[in-house]
């Protein structure tokens, strides 16, 4: 790219833009109306399948049996706690019954599957000389009297529901609420948000009191809380706009241009949302980040334009010429920076998880839109409005005093400061490298990792885990057999061995499957004699033993039986151990007619996601750095230059990995894209600064002078950009959704660190690599 071409294309573009300004304005207005209309139709989209690596072997296996496994997952648990005593209390039982009835009528509830001590399907059973006897847990003649409460206690004890529908400490009772994903009457899909809100209103709000406390958990509740949380993020956007407006004014001292920059950036967001809706995509809790990024990127590029505009006005040009010159000066640098952003985001497409792909597409579209709104529309608007006289006065008044930022950072081109900075960086780098080794894959916290640990959901979850014998981390292995053979003796016996193998694996709490039912059935059929707790070879006996187990534990044509493995937690290490144990078993026992397929259940899916993320992590880093290096090489044609720009970025990447380890943020669907975003946007600073440094060096300036020049012309803008970007995403730190907060923390850190890295390390590295003329002392002020 020679200077000739720059000028040539700039002039051409400049003419096309400024000669027909009204036409452009009309086109922009029409497009904004059109896309704005579509933007209003964008819907939050929390599709489960998009958050998982659909091409992973585990997920493919899961999809094969998805319908068969449906009843395992979609359940809400409502625990009703008596804070004043035990559940054997007339008043409490009345409340429990009312809540039970209330839930029964909520749309989406599988009514016949509803279970609590107040539903008729919960019974106690006993073996007598004549066979089994039993009855409903609530005595037929229940009247709340002391006697009937005592009878209730007896029935509860012999029903075996302690730890299940009744807490181990008898202070709370549970209502088990299975949901129909598809309403059997209307065929409509379950509206999670609506369900979740009804549950809140009809149960928690209505019955929570001094003596009764409600705890609710389940996938439907998580989704409901996620969508509610996402709506709050809308408020953050407003907050980000207000803060940015204030900063813009502080920077430019011009209301007019501040508002125009803001407006152009908001238009960029509207376009981006409109286009997303047009291509049939939605906005998910991850890609919700994109409008913030687009807005911040828009503002940061807009600032460069205003910066130039004011400078040109000060130099005495009129509004139109000032705008034209601003456009001319920033056209190439802006385009290069935005192109590297967009391509950097596109590298996220290598990760085989739909939400990340959607995020990549949305962010690339957003950046492309910023080119139109903030490199084209903004200069046109500015050519009409100009900047206020006050802004020009302010600039005149301050341009001769060295800005504190400029005078501070300019030192880093001097050898003493440069080598000092490099030494400190080296120390920090080694810290980052050491700490980064401890960075974990996957989610690290208990409960619903999407939500904060102290969120009500996770507190409720902790309550239920503490008081009932159930783990919420479930890994399902599917035992696949020939049709009608899922409970054949040979298959059951191997499934039994597998269950024991898994039971003996670190991190496994319990294993349940049809084999367990058969063993319990044998125990029951033989008068409750534990000596029969074994799988029998006789197929008729086996069939009898699982007589009462309909196909939840095997599918309709009896070709698959899920083996449900309850885990201590869903940490990546635990999941890895479990996967390795399954693989070891399948390698050791290859028996014709049966296969053990991984994996379903929330932990099974997480294991697949982790494995994809672990490999994608490096793939993505290679891609994003590869692309950025190639772009910089094309622009600057010098390996030393590329090193000066890339090394600070790599430094930030290493430091952010150290930060993730220290802050217990795992590499997961939410945080993986952040590294690519950080690098993609971070390279902007380097490009802006280095292009100025090079300009000056080409004029024959020393490195110190060249860096001084770069800081004078763009240092303030770079500093401002870093802060704007950081503030845009920093609001996310307050999101009720844990992974959004994690994204916020990391992006804020990366944006600020990238800015500091660019301002400090680029000159220092340039000094180290001896960039610039040999005779460093020569003074040759660059032309303005």
């Amino acid at each position, binding site marked *: 790219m020679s200077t000739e071409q720059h000028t040539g294309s700039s002039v051409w573009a400049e003419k096309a833009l400024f000669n027909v300004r009204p036409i452009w304005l009309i086109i922009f207005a029409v497009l904004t109306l059109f896309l704005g209309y579509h933007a209003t139709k964008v819907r939050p989209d929390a599709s489960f399948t998009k958050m998982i690596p659909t091409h992973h072997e585990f997920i493919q296996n899961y999809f094969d049996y998805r319908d068969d496994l449906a009843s395992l997952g979609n359940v809400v648990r409502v625990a009703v706690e008596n804070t004043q005593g035990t559940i054997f209390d007339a008043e409490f039982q009345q409340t429990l019954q009312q809540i039970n009835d209330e839930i029964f009528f909520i749309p989406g509830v*599988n009514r*016949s*599957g509803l279970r609590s001590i107040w539903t008729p399907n919960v019974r106690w059973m006993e073996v007598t000389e004549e066979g089994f006897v039993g009855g409903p847990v609530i005595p037929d003649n229940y009247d709340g009297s002391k006697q009937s409460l005592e009878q209730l206690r007896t029935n509860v004890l012999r029903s075996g529901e302690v730890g299940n529908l009744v807490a181990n400490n008898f202070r709370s009772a549970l209502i088990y609420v299975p949901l129909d994903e598809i309403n059997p009457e209307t065929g409509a899909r379950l509206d999670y948000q609506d369900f979740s809100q009804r549950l809140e209103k009809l149960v928690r709000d209505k019955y929570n009191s001094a003596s009764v406390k409600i705890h609710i958990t389940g996938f439907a509740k998580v989704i409901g809380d996620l969508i509610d949380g996402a709506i709050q993020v809308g408020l953050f956007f407003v907050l980000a706009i207000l803060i940015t407006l204030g900063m813009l004014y502080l920077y430019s001292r011009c209301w007019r241009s501040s508002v125009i920059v803001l407006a152009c950036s908001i238009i960029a967001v509207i376009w981006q949302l409109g286009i997303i809706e047009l291509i049939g995509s939605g906005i998910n809790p991850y890609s919700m980040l994109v409008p913030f990024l687009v807005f911040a990127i828009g503002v940061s590029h807009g600032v460069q334009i205003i910066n130039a505009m004011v400078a040109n006005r000060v130099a005495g040009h009129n509004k139109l010429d000032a705008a034209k010159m601003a456009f001319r000066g920033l056209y190439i640098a802006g385009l290069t920076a935005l192109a590297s952003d967009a391509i950097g985001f596109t590298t996220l497409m290598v990760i085989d998880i739909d939400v990340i792909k959607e995020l990549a597409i949305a962010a690339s579209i957003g950046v492309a839109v910023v080119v139109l709104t903030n490199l084209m529309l903004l200069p046109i608007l500015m050519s009409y409005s100009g900047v206020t006289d006050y802004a020009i006065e302010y600039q005149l008044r301050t341009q001769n005093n060295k800005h504190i930022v400029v005078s501070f950072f300019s030192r880093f081109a001097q050898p003493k400061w440069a080598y000092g900075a490099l030494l400190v960086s080296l120390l920090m780098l080694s810290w980052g490298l050491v700490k980064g080794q401890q960075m974990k894959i996957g989610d690290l916290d208990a409960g619903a990792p999407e939500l904060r640990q102290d969120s009500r959901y996770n507190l409720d979850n902790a309550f239920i885990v503490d008081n009932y014998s159930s783990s919420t981390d479930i890994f399902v292995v599917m035992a696949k057999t020939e049709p009608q053979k899922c409970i054949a003796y040979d298959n059951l016996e191997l499934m039994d061995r597998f269950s024991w193998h898994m039971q003996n694996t670190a991190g496994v709490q319990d294993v349940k499957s049809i084999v367990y039912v058969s063993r319990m059935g044998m125990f029951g059929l033989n008068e409750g*004699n534990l000596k029969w707790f074994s799988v029998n*070879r006789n197929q008729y006996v086996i069939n009898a033993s699982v007589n009462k187990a309909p196909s939840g534990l095997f599918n309709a044509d009896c070709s698959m039986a899920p083996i449900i493995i309850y885990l201590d937690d869903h940490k990546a290490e635990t999941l890895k151990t479990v996967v390795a144990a399954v693989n070891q078993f399948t390698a050791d026992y290859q*028996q014709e007619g049966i296969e053990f397929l991984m994996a379903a259940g929330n932990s099974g899916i997480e294991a697949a996601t982790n494995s994809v993320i672990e490999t994608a992590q490096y793939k993505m880093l290679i891609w994003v750095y590869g692309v950025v290096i190639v772009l910089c090489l094309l622009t600057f044609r010098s390996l030393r230059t590329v090193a000066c720009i890339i090394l600070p970025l790599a430094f930030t990447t290493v430091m952010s990995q150290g930060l993730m380890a220290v802050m217990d943020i795992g590499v997961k669907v939410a945080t993986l894209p952040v590294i690519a975003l950080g690098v993609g946007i971070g390279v902007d600073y380097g490009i802006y600064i280095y292009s100025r440094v090079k300009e000056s060096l080409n004029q024959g300036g020393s490195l110190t002078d060249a860096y001084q020049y770069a800081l004078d012309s763009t240092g303030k803008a770079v500093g401002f950009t870093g802060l704007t970007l950081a503030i845009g995403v920093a609001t996310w730190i307050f999101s009720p959704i844990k992974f959004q907060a994690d994204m916020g923390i990391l992006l804020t850190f990366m944006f600020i660190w990238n800015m500091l890295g660019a301002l400090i390390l680029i000159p220092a590295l340039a000094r180290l690599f001896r960039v610039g003329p040999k005779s460093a002392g020569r003074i040759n002020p660059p032309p303005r």
Partner: protein
Amino acid sequence: MRKLNKVSYILAVMCLGGAAHTAVALQQAPLTANAASETSPQSQQYDVIYAASPASTLASSNVLLDLQQADGYRLAVGDWGNVLRQTEVGGDWQKAQVDTSVLLTAVTSVAEQAWAVGHHGVIIYSSDGGQHWQRQLDGFQLFDLEAAELKQRIAHLQSELEQAAEDDAGDLQFALEDAQFLLENIDLARQESGPVKPLLDVYAMDAERIFAVGAYNTFLYSADGGRNWQSIAGRLENSGGFHLNAMTGQGDTLFIVGEAGQLFRSDDAGQTWQTLNSPYNGSFFGTHVDEQGRWWLYGLRGHAYVSSDNGDSFLKIATGTDANLSGGLSLATGYTLLVGNSGVMSKVTADNSSNPDVIEHSSGSVLTDALSNDEGFVLVGRNGIQHYRVQNKQ
């Protein structure tokens, strides 16, 4: 509707699992030579009879069914071919090497020799105080033993039938058909399913004379410490094929208790047996003879009886529970402890002289046997080895 059942059943299953499973962090046990041999050659059909008991650190907290106080050591047997061995009272329970993975139901010992029985007709033997165990018998061999006995009986009945008077012919014909039917069943089982009958108890008169009893009137005897076994099912009058649940004895007097109140006694070291009048028509799961020579038997729904005259008469014991009782232990203090389902431990006396003292073990899980300990009792059952401390052990 099906969906309902799925969900509710899963819940039911989970609750049947009983008390909270504590999270046990354990290291994946390395494959021992033993464990490796069980899987070679690869892709061979897995059979629980021939697969060695897998290495496990959960053995002591998983199903264990029977305890044996041997000379200088204790044994506990249970699921997955697990045999645990304790050499010091209160010491660790070490997992022994066993060449089967079936559910072991009972164990007995004479000095350093020990025998254990289990499902799929398996009998295992140890000559080193329970450290290493080998199979002496499995269900496939059991078919041969039973077939041999039946063929012998058939031949005997046929020759009797030829010489019999007309009056006796009907009965003999019936017995013959019965034996032939049983033989056919054995052939059928051998071809179709394999061994389905669990052995439920083992009793050693001395180091040579060993008995094993099991489901559907399975009754085995060895006169040479288990090197050779024979089926002696025909010695019992049990045409209904009721399960023989437990066996005990003193001297040459032997007792078998079984399903539906079945009781048998032999006064000649097992040569001939007589059916006793049972005080109860429900099943007995456990039996023992105490120091005073009293015969205890206990079973379904908290029923327990004691006989001071070898089963000619019985005294019903008030146990204070209606849970199944399957294990018992008489103490030097005169008390007898009976244990059973729902963690029930009932302390009773042979003459009902004091009200039963019923304690529910905190685990609430099925208990199957007990031994006395320094501090109280060692218990086994659904949750493996558990302890019960007695404040003032009387």
